[in-house]
Structures are given as C-alpha cells and as structure tokens.
C-alpha cells in the first residue's frame, strides 16, 4: 500500500536534515503510529507522502511509493490525481485547516467536485453520508454551517469526513487530536478505529504522545531527529522498548496511566471491544459547547494524555 524508502528531506534554510533516511511500510488496512517529540520530522514525512512538500524550499531524495507509484518525484498533475482521491489528510488545527468563509458541507464535498463527475445533488448526498459516518449529530445542519459555528471536535470530525468522502485507501492523520481536549480526543480515536474497520482505510497516525498512539495503532514507529529509532508492535514498543529514546518517552508516562494501558491492551488482545460508547459520546457533543459535553461524558473512563 505505502512504502517509504530511504527518505531524505533537507530544507535549504536549515543545517540539519529534517528527515534523514526514513524507511517503513504500511500494509493494507493497517493503522501505523508515528511518534516522536516535536521537530523530529513526523510532519515532514507525512507531507512527503501527501505530496505537500514545498519543493522549491527543500531538497529531497528517496522514494514514497503509494500503490507502487512514486509520490516524491511525481509531476504535479499526477500528484493532484492522487491527492484527496487516494490519500486523505487530516491536520492538527481543524479551525485553521478549514476555509473560514466556505460552508462545511462544501468543503467536505470539495474532493468529489475535483475528482468525480457527480452532480451537485449526488455530491451533497455523499457529503452528508460522510458527515453521518463520522457520527456528527444532525449532519444536514452541519452541512450548512460555517466553521466558526462548530466546536473543535465537530470540526475535526468534519475534516475527517472531508478526507474520507472519496473513500481514499490511505488516511494521513497529523496530530489530529492534539488540539482537542481529552474527552473529545478519546471519541475521535474510537471513531478512527471504527472507520478503519468499516471502510478498510489504512492510516498513518502521527502524534507526539506515545500513549495516544498505543490506543489506536497495532504498530508504532518512533522517530527522533529525522531518523527512525524504533519500529515494532505497539505492545512490544510500549513494554519492551529497545532504544534509550523510546525508554525515555515511556518514562514520561505516569505509572497509573501505564497500568491502565497494560490492562486495556491485554484485554484488547483477548476480545473485540464495543464501540457504542463513542457513538453516544459523539451525540453528546454540541456546537454550543464541546467543553461542557466533555465534562459530562466520560468515554470509557480513560484518559489520553
């Protein structure tokens, strides 16, 4: 599905390579986690995959193969055919990632307007379906709202809807929950897991927080200063970290949270967990105040921070 081979990216105005020889594979239907402190090159890696590198401002080498086609050196025209169509991207700040003057619905269906010949009606139907898929309460209303009228959590759900509306095979999630508060974060993670199962979308989930990643991803890559220092099954990385940097990351997680993590990961291996809680929580989230909802709804009693 996705294979990155010896990726190097160096910005002209920097001394050090932002990404210095990164290689990994993402299998069909997998959710791969990418962790590392800020500045370690996670976003640049994701941008290289999505064809969003500012090509004039940097030099780059290696290969980014999406279904066998190299995205890193692809012509703009080819890139555009893949962008949005085969690869969806969700960014950290939902508020600034959306056009403030375009209604949410129009932004959700933008991909369809670019890549398909669907009529306006059909596009709207698909957009509302996508908004329903991300468990937004009252998707028809959301369709006609401007971004400033929605809460951060609802916006991020809409961004996810916009990214999956064209049924891409790969979803790049660059710290999609970092800007959200803890309860909303938990709901979004559950939603992503559900979408992954339901639509078989492969995901690259980026976070600086190992504990967030372990809830969602079966496999984790740890990056430091532009290189991968650890790559393995989440359980192993979490409990038998090999590299000192990973050990350091794990030391930063409070013991209580680690205990919860261990218990839930062991349970996870044994049984398929029910996702109803996330659905209910999604409905409790309102445009007026996501924070209020956050206080009253406890998603699974767990904390992700």
């Amino acid at each position, binding site marked *: 599905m996705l294979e990155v081979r010896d990726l190097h990216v160096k910005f002209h105005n920097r001394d050090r390579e932002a990404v210095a020889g990164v290689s990994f594979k993402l299998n069909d239907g997998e959710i791969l986690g990418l962790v590392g402190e800020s500045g370690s090159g996670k976003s640049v890696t994701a941008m290289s995959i*999505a064809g*969003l590198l500012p090509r004039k401002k940097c030099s780059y080498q290696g290969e980014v193969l999406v279904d066998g086609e190299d995205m890193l050196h692809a012509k*703009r025209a080819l890139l*555009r*055919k*893949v*962008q*949005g*169509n085969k*690869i*969806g*991207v969700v*960014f950290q*700040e939902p508020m*600034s*990632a*959306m*056009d*403030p*003057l*375009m209604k949410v619905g129009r932004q959700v269906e*933008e*991909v369809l307007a*670019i*890549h398909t010949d669907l009529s306006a009606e059909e596009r709207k139907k698909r957009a509302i379906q996508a908004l329903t898929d991300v468990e937004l309460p009252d998707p028809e209303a959301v369709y006609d709202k*401007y971004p*400033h009228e929605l809460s951060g959590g609802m916006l991020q759900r809409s*961004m996810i809807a*916009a990214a999956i509306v064209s049924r891409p095979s790969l979803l790049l999630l660059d710290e999609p929950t970092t800007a959200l508060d803890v309860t909303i974060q938990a709901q979004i993670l559950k939603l992503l897991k559900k979408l992954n199962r339901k639509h078989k979308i492969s995901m690259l989930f980026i976070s600086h927080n190992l504990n967030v990643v372990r809830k969602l991803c079966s496999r984790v890559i740890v990056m430091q200063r532009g290189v991968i220092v650890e790559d393995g099954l989440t359980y192993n990385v979490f409990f038998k970290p090999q590299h000192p940097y990973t050990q350091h990351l794990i030391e930063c997680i409070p013991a209580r949270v680690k205990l919860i993590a261990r218990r839930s990961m062991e349970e996870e291996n044994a049984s398929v967990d029910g996702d109803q809680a996330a659905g209910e929580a999604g409905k409790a989230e309102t445009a007026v105040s996501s924070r209020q909802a956050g206080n009253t709804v406890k998603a699974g009693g767990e904390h992700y921070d």
Partner: protein
Amino acid sequence: MKYVVRRILALIITMIMVSFLAFAAFHIISGDPARAILGMNATESQLKVLRQEMGLDKPFMVQYLNWLIGFFTGNLGISYSYRQPVSELIAPKLKVTLLMVLISFVIIIVCSVPLGLRAAQKSRGRLEWLRTTIIQLCMAVPAFFLSILVSYVFGIIFKFFTPGDFPKIEKDLAGAVKYLFFAAVCIAIPRIAMAVRMLKSTLIEEMEKDYVRTAISRGNDRTEVLKKHVLKNSLVPTITFLGQTMAEIVGGSIVVEQVFGIPGMGRFLVASISNRDYPVVEALVVILAFWVILSGTLADLINQKIDPRLKLGGRA
C-alpha cells in the same frame, strides 16, 4: 438582518453628530450672517428684520434643528456671495464631481484587481524590484503633478480634450465623460498603486494560511485554490480599502479639478472658503463628511455579507 439595522442606526447617529459639530463650528466662526449678507452699511433695524427672517434670534438648538431639517429637504440656506439658494449652486457641481469620482473608482477597481493578482503570483519573479519601484513611484507622485502632465500630454499634444474647456454634461455627456476620464486617471493612479500593493500582500498572506494546504491536499492546483478559497478570503480587507478609497478620492479630486479646470465641488469649495461663503462651505463640509461615513458603512455592509463572522461583531 439585525446587523444591517444596527449598522444603519450607527450611520445615522454618526451623521447627526458630525452635522452638529459642523453646525456648531460654523455658528462660532461665521459671526453674524445678517451682517455678512447686508454688508457694513446696513442699519440695526434692517439687520434685526433679516435675523428674524433667518431664524437667527431663536435658541441655538432650534436653529440647528431647522438647519438639519433644511439639509435633508434640500434647503441649505442662501449663499452670501451669490445671493442664491446653496442647493441650486451646489447641485450641478456635485453632479460633475460625482461623475468624475465614479469614473475614477471604476478605473481603480478594473486596474488594481488583475494587477494585484499578477503581482501576487509573480512576487518571487526576477523583475520584482522593477515592479516594486513602479508601485512606489506611482504612490509617491503628487496628483497635481500628474494632472499637469496628463493635461499637457493628452490635452495639448494629442488633443484628446481641450484643457480648460469643459463641456456641459447636459449638452455633451460623451465629451464631458471623456474630459473627466483624464482627470479621473490622475486621481486613480496613486490609488491603484496602493491597492495593488495592498492586494498583493493580502493575497500572499492568505496563500500561507493552513486552509490552502488543506485545499492542495484535496487535489486543487494553485490557481484553483486562488479562485475557490483565497480570493474570497482576501476580499474583506480589499473592500475595506476600497471603501476608504471611495471616501478619499473626493478629497483628491479638489486639486485635480483645479488643474483641469473642472467646475466641480472641489473648485467651488476652495472658492467659497476664500469668499468666506459659510453656508456653502458648511453644506459642502457636511456633504463630504456624509460621503465618507457612507462609504465606510457600505464597505462594512458588503463585508458582513462576505464574512459571516463579522456579524458577531468580531472585526466590524
């Protein structure tokens, strides 16, 4: 809807305040209007009669209200120097200036929008220094100098129009428009330069925003991003700027009218000031102030249509 009502209410209140200040100021500086009209040789009884006739014996607030009502009903008082109703004197000059300002405004919009777009697209090109220099030059050149240059080159050398011989609008509209066009260009050039610079920096700033990256990640090319997202987002500051321009070019027209010999409001204002023809000056000052306030309000109302966030009173 509520926003529109609020904005128009604010407009009316501002206008009343401005007109009150203007009235009070002229009340103080103009001294005794009866004396000004009748001259130094008038007897005390003659003056008294006229004062009564003009309502000058009434309390200040009553005088103001009468004047305000008169202003909105077209009764602007009598000119000292022409002994004619101010409204009759002003109307034809207002028409000329308004026409010139509108032509100028159209030129500004028609030129600055495409130029601003190109300037933003080419901002990293090799000829950037040249473009910047031209813009700076156009901004710096004074309107009177441009007017002299244009009337010499296009009027005297190429004979597109005859400087000093302004055709009457009623008789020869096409000729008048042609004449005004050259004056309007002189008003427009510095403004176009400013608009281009402003538009360029706004567009470049917008292109750096996160939502542009989102749009590109969906498969848009840069032109599409510009058309679909960036232009609309750049519109609010642009309209605000154009609103200011609308207000300021009236001021700019005063000098240009002088050089071109256009019988407009500007020239009339200057003449009336030197004649101490206070009723005329007062009326013109208030009309100018209303024009400025109106332009701003109009820009705000349009912006509010474009950006729904402004309805919340965020950046009004």
